[in-house]
């Protein structure tokens, strides 16, 4: 750069900053607070690395005992795996259907009235706040042991989560096309069905697939509370220390989850 472009140098005034500024003090305070938080958490979580040192060899011996994996019960275990996938599919689909009206109420830009918006949001947050595991625990008590309790648990939690994510997808779409459609004098229902839906449909399907995938993973543990599926077999094998059987179950879960993850990811990519 030639000085002809920049002009001749002179002494430009700069703001005076002291070494101990308010922002540095604030940063130090935040660090202190974080240190206190983690030290408290460490004690509350009773982290004892020593226990891990004695526990690891135990696990290694289990792993050694687990080979070769038990295959005699494979048909039963496959049926239990199918049960898990089915629980996730039915629960997620039921949740998606229930979420359609709720997501419209809970989206600020299309809600018919703010008097419906806030209750809808509170309701969805309540559903989201309780994990499907906890719901399943309650439903096992209400409808008895078996996958149906798991379906209900998944459906309720996913209902809240899906509707909230969908409402956010609706709130994020550009307002222009909606305004243009509304300006023709069309009713709100027509505007939502015709102008809004095509814009949000891909992200809605994507969110739905994500929750199905997530629920397959989540429902592998629902069996632990008696809500059927492969999780129940997992708990039984662990209780009876049947390590070869446990090995087969974990391998089945891994394969299923991987296949479902890839299928869902592939489908979501195809949505562009």
């Amino acid at each position: 750069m030639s000085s002809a472009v920049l002009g001749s140098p002179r002494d430009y005034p700069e703001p005076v900053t002291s070494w101990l500024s308010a922002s540095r003090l604030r940063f130090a305070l935040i660090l202190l607070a974080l240190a206190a938080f983690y030290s408290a958490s460490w004690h509350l979580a009773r982290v004892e690395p020593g226990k891990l040192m004695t526990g690891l060899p135990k696990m290694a011996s289990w792993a050694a005992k687990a080979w070769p994996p038990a295959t005699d019960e494979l048909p039963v275990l496959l049926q239990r795996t199918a049960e898990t996938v089915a629980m996730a599919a039915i629960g997620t689909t039921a949740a998606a259907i229930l979420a359609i009206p709720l997501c419209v109420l809970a989206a600020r830009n299309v809600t018919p009235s703010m008097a419906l918006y806030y209750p809808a949001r509170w309701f969805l947050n309540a559903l989201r706040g309780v994990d499907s595991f906890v719901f399943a625990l309650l439903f096992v008590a209400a409808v008895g042991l078996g996958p149906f309790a798991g379906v209900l648990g998944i459906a309720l939690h996913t209902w809240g989560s899906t509707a909230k994510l969908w409402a956010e997808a609706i709130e994020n779409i550009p307002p222009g096309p909606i305004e243009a459609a509304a300006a023709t004098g069309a009713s709100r229902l027509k505007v939502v069905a015709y102008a809004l839906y095509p814009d949000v449909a891909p992200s809605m399907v994507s969110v739905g697939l994500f929750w199905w995938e997530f629920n397959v993973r989540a429902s592998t543990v629902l069996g632990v509370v008696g809500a059927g599926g492969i999780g129940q077999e997992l708990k039984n094998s662990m209780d009876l220390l049947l390590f070869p059987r446990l090995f087969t179950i974990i391998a089945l879960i891994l394969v299923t989850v991987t296949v479902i993850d890839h299928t869902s990811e592939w489908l979501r990519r195809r949505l562009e």
Partner: protein
Amino acid sequence: MAAPATRVTAPSNGAVIRALDVTKTYPPAVAALTRVSLTVHPGEFVAVLGPSGAGKTTLFRCLTGLTRPDTGSILVNGTDIDRVRGRALGRARHGVALIFQQFNLIRRLTAVENVLVGRLAQAPTWRVVIRRFARADRQLALRCLDTVGLLDRAWARADRLSGGQQQRVAIARALAQEATVILADEPVASLDPESAATVLESLRSVAATGVAVVASLHQVHLARAYADRIVALRAGTIVQDAPATQIDARTLEQIYDRNGEPTEGAERP
């Protein structure tokens, strides 16, 4: 409760827009429009010129009933748009089609599906929900696309079209609404010169069919080339309302601060 529909059949002498002494002041004391009177007849192409902040957008909002003027009256198709509420207002708005600077098409739908938005208000709800419009509506939509010269792109997705093509789809959408008035707020501001020319050409041929077109423009030469009449706004008052051929350089200097071009620094988001 919506107020009773007051249909005022005023002596409008065939005018589709008749604004009388419209004044609008935004709090605390920003005079957006001061005693603006404007009459537009069917088939007229009126260009509204003026620097940013001159009151163009407020005028357009008043004409669609989105903003209510403090004083004065606005008759659109004989209806006092300031007095009607609810369904009557919906009906009145249906007679006025809007074209936006950013086109506002539904990007994942095809051109012809976007044009069908103009038929939403009349179509039965079940047809809208299953996206199956009556044959008459579909044919009308195609005819509208034909009018703006885009029949060959009818089944292309809106986001695959160029800016100029998208704006012509928006014009076709306004035509499908079968409105008597098309209001276009800076329809070519985000287009390149060539696309701007085709869009204005389309608007002019639409006006030739008897629709009144009111468009706000930033470029004086475009207004002179395409419009029948130029209405010049400055600081909320009409400083000139004359046939496009009679607008002279001195008047333009009056509208803009220099050389007939809007002052860059005066641009507002």
